[in-house]
């Protein structure tokens, strides 16, 4: 991305602006009732310029949900790859930072995940097969690596991933539903205690 021109960065910004606006609209209206016209209006552009960037409502929805999640999983893979060389205390710090990052992303997309995974079985199954399943498999690699970093821990990786994901989901959902900002440091501490201390107490 180092060589982006002004025009490209403006296009990126506009794309991101649309995605931010779409998250608000999808969250308010749900998937079926959200209109591209409203998303365009919320982003401050015309519907035709919206369609010059995205082909359909579904394309917007997929990008609004998976852009941040794909980035997040890449970060998690990076973290799990550099962590093993470090001391226990530094590893713990890295996990706390990872939790904070996850909460941040989850707060953005929590309702979209709810719609995509949970609101409609057939829709959920398709997103799962095409996007979420592969995403979770990569995420599982990061979790497996994390567990390998902690010698002697025998937690099934999938259980850990689903539980960590679900806890983040629950904490973000609660804040979103009550219409408040998530108390990120507080929640990250809870997550660190529950998962890191639990794993740490078994390690070595």
């Amino acid at each position: 991305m180092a060589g982006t021109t002004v025009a490209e960065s403006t296009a990126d910004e506009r794309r991101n602006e649309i995605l931010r606006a779409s998250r608000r609209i999808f969250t308010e209206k749900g998937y079926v009732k959200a209109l591209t016209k409203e998303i365009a209006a919320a982003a401050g552009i015309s519907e035709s310029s919206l369609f010059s960037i995205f082909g359909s409502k579904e394309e917007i929805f997929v990008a609004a949900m998976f852009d941040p999640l794909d980035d997040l999983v890449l970060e998690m893979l990076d973290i799990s790859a550099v962590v093993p060389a470090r001391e226990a205390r530094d590893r713990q710090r890295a996990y706390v930072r990872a939790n904070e990052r996850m909460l941040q992303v989850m707060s953005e997309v929590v309702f979209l995940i709810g719609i995509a995974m949970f609101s409609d079985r057939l829709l959920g199954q398709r997103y799962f097969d095409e996007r979420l399943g592969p995403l979770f498999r990569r995420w599982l690699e990061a979790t497996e690596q994390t567990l390998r970093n902690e010698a002697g821990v025998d937690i099934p990786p999938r259980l850990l991933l689903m539980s960590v994901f679900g806890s983040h989901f629950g904490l973000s959902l609660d804040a979103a539903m009550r219409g408040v900002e998530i108390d990120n440091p507080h929640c990250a501490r809870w997550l660190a205690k529950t998962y890191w201390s639990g794993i740490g107490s078994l390690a070595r």
Partner: protein
Amino acid sequence: MTAAPSPRRKSARAKVPRRRLPAEQRKQQIAFTAQKMFIEAGRDSVSMQSIADTAGVNIALLYRHFRSNVELYQAAVIEPLVVAIQEAVSTNRDDWPADAESRFTLVHQSIMEFVRTSGPLLRIALFSDGTSAREFYSEHIVPLLKNWVEPMLQEVADAGNLDLDIQATAVATFGAHLTFVLYPDASEDESASADIAGQLASLHWRGLSSR
């Protein structure tokens, strides 16, 4: 958007011979039909007309029982959930095991059982659209956590003399169970869910009981 057969095939369903039912029974039958269709296809993909067709009544009769789709949604989805939530909240355990970890496992099993049995309706109530979901969450899920899950966790904290962040534990535990139950490839089997509840309890216990 989906290729699977939708429940809107009028011709096949409209031929169902219509029997006269007492009004209250008819109302229940319509609500039950709507519930099944919401679970199958999602709230927004089901029209009043398709519900009438599937229930084998004409649309005017449907509107006599339910003045709007909101009213039907209330009867088909929200009311049964409210009953399940009230049942959960009113169960007062007086058979708590003495040790904290067994209590904690029991809490996980109770939450899992609630989420498993109410999952199909929770899915609709929480994720159809944000506005009515928020209303449902603050009116019913917040009290469920506060009056049911949190007191159970307090029993755990008391038995183990633990400094437990009860509110965060309640919310995160509920989210974790919801994820396991609603995850697209999840098993709906009761014993599989009980297994997961036990595994989650022991995973969380390791961390939460550490000092």
